[in-house]
């Protein structure tokens, strides 16, 4: 007889009032675990490693050299103010559209210095940039 009674009871329902509580709990989890992407930087595409060396005319290359103690030289002229590199590169690009900027860095120079120079070259609007290490010894 008790079985019959059970069949007559109301169908079970999910309490809607506490749904919000559950949902907010999940929100809290996602809020705390979210890390908004802080990835940012300077984009560059490396050249392919191939045996065929692409030949670029000498007049289309602007070489910027960074030596071991971090001095920067553009076309045999030492730049103490890095900001000047920007206008120098801008001038170069204005004269020659297909100018390739080659940044030659000494292996013992600090990485930061190379980034500072690369930054100025990018600010000048150069699209074709090449990073070259200065070979030491053999």
């Amino acid at each position, binding site marked *: 007889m008790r079985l019959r009674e059970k069949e007559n009871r109301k169908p079970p329902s999910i309490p*809607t*009032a506490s*749904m*919000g509580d*559950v*949902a*907010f709990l*999940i*929100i809290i989890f*996602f*809020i705390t*675990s*979210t*890390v*908004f*992407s802080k*990835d*940012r*930087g*300077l*984009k*560059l*595409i*490396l*050249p*392919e*490693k191939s045996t065929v060396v692409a030949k670029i005319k000498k007049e289309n290359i602007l070489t910027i050299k*960074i030596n071991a103690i971090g001095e920067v030289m553009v076309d045999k002229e030492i730049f103490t103010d890095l900001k000047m590199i920007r206008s120098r590169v801008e001038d170069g690009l204005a004269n020659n559209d297909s100018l390739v900027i080659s940044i030659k*860095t*000494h*292996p*013992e*120079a*600090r*990485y*930061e*210095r*190379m*980034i*500072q120079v*690369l*930054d100025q070259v*990018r*600010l000048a609007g150069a699209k074709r940039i090449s*990073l070259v*290490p200065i070979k030491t010894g053999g």
Partner: protein
Amino acid sequence: MPDIPMASTADIAFLLILFFMVTTVIRTATGLKVTRPLAESTERIKMRRNLVHLWIDGSGRIQIDDNLVPLNYVAERMTQKRLDNPDIVTILDVEKDLNYGLVDEVMEELKEAGAYKITFATDFLREGG
């Protein structure tokens, strides 16, 4: 007295959940401790799914995503990553006081692995700041 409708709070809450679920990128690895160089032309990296993180800290240790890797294995690891996903972009998070020589060697390894798209991780440098 006006009442806040309880039934619809759940709907609002679930909407917020969806937003956070979509925007959440659960960090797979925490990297080595580095001080990034500053640059004015820093740009945000928009795509997040194809990123490979590479850290080089002040003592020259190299970490790729969640593994510490010796220099001569960088190419091998990166080749595996590239085979899994050909569109990878490598983020080089390098200590600013490090010698350029090591960075160059790592870049040579990346070239060998065919991972040509790279990004030097930098922080924004504000004019005059």
